[in-house]
């Protein structure tokens, strides 16, 4: 899948793209964010499992449980929920910061489709002195189109077998 290093130009294009995306998400500019997604987006995060290294068997977990297993329809459902104005837990805003680092970009087998690795930390300031932080790795596929780079697939790996926030009212 990893088809080698991309040119500096493409590498920097995607650095900027991922930082832009983070800023849009932190600002809850969801309509702008949607313009960065392919219509057939796959947006995925699975529940991490704490299992022995030698435990290769899937027999006890044939199915993976998703935290996110979204397509455009379900992403829109999440965004439309925010737009109802009925999501009391996000009013006032819980100041949120999407912190992106460790960006790598590689060619894939498909021309103008790029594999991008990154690490994301989401920091939230909740009521009074409560703070929350979740850390995840991301593996993206980005397509280059006439209207810019679009996210085709994101597989995020959360580093938490127990999630330490009472909601994930945001995207990674």
């Amino acid at each position, binding site marked *: 899948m990893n088809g080698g290093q991309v040119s500096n130009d493409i590498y920097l294009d995607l650095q900027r793209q991922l930082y832009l995306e983070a800023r849009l998400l932190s600002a809850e500019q969801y309509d702008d964010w949607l313009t960065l997604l392919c219509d057939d987006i796959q947006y995925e995060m699975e529940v991490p499992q*704490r299992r022995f290294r030698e435990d290769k068997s899937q027999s006890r*977990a044939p199915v993976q449980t998703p935290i996110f297993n979204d397509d455009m329809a379900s992403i829109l459902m999440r965004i439309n929920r925010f737009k109802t104005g009925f999501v009391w837990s996000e009013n006032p805003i819980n100041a949120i910061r999407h912190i992106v680092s460790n960006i790598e970009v590689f060619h894939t087998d498909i021309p103008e489709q790029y594999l991008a690795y990154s690490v994301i930390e989401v920091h939230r300031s909740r009521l009074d002195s409560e703070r929350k932080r979740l850390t995840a790795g991301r593996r993206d596929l980005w397509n280059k189109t006439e209207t810019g780079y679009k996210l085709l697939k994101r597989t995020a790996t959360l580093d938490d077998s127990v*999630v330490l926030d009472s909601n994930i009212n945001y995207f990674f």
Partner: protein
Amino acid sequence: MKQNLDDLIDFKTGRQKRLIYSDPDIYQQELKNIFARCWLFLAHDCQLKEPGDFIRTFMGEDEVLVVRQQDNSVKAFLNTCTHRGNRLCKADHGNSKTFVCNYHGWSFSLDGQLSSVPLEEAAYHNKLDKSKFGMTEVAQIASYKGLIFATFDKSAPSLEDYLGEMKWYLDIWLDAMPEGTELIGTAMKVELPVNWKLAVENVSGDGYHLGWAHAGAMTVTTSMDLSGLSVGNSDVNNAEAVSVAGLNGHTVLAALDGLSGYAFYPEPEIAVDYLQKNRPTVIDRLGDYRGENMWGSQINLTVFPNLQMLPGLNWFRIYHPKGPGKFEMWTWAMVDKEMPDELKQKILNNVSRTFGPAGLFDNDDGDNLQAATEQSRGWVSRQMDVYTNMALDGGHSREEMPGVVSEGLVCEQNQRYVYRRWLEMMSADNWSDVPSYNNLQEARATEAK
């Protein structure tokens, strides 16, 4: 302590004193009188398929290892070594031939026996009586139609008696289809800064919050009517639903339409097909009433103190207390084994999307429950009361179903009974002091003759 306990709860007026959500001594007594005494859910049969399969879980704050035995029975042990007390198993689930302690290598067989001890001869001079150092087993373990429970209390009633009439309702999910149920995927685990009772009361009887707290989620997910509950709590139809309590602290919320379980599926079609196709079978097994009116309906089942399951929405959840103001919540998708894979996958996705860590519904509840916990702490606040005093005039027995029944999903009867049971357990010195409410059942049984 009993005396001041009585003043914490008033069953008749539906009053609770807030310090039950924050007081550390009350919490310690909960660990002793409730979590070290009641039957607690451990695992679903399907999680322990083969001998050696294990699950690491909790009973109260005590860490427990649940293990499928060679003879296919199941045993549960404190997950700690009897030598120096190390944690024995650090994986959440898996399969093992033995449990070997990381500290000195003591090895325990699946049945908890201390099977081998390094340097037994050279160091222990063969004087260690290994039979005395097996893993510490729970006092009783038993299972009901796929659900494995255990208790730390030898004198606890049998699981059958503990569940009592609640079994009649559990069967609507556990025994509806010939092959029964299974959990799919793995547990979604979330830590919440909330007192465990506030989460339990919510699911046990609080249909009232649905239309308001979840107004946003309902707006984008609802595909059909659920007993008239509407966005903004502007309307409800209590005629076609019931709240049931008086079942040894267990409670039920149930719509009676045989369909609304899939109300929050944007595209419920394939689930509805499944219901139609299989309803005859279910009627055969559960009879007309449960088969027609309840199977497929939105139902909230609460097994006291900390297990809750929602057929329809198809989630299955247990709460592990971690202090007066903290718990861990584990949620699974549970399905009928016979369901087609496509439906199972759809259900798994929907459970995650509605009640998982990023669930559209669950993400509405956390802040409310956390705030209620926080507002029970200040010196003045902790003296204040909270109320579940809706429809105090309700609560009768009905021919067609056991327990004390009130009309509708929006009715706080169930919470009152949960807190009455809480008080009974907290006040009792032992199980013989704890009242049982299975007589209704016996009565009905006698009539039946």
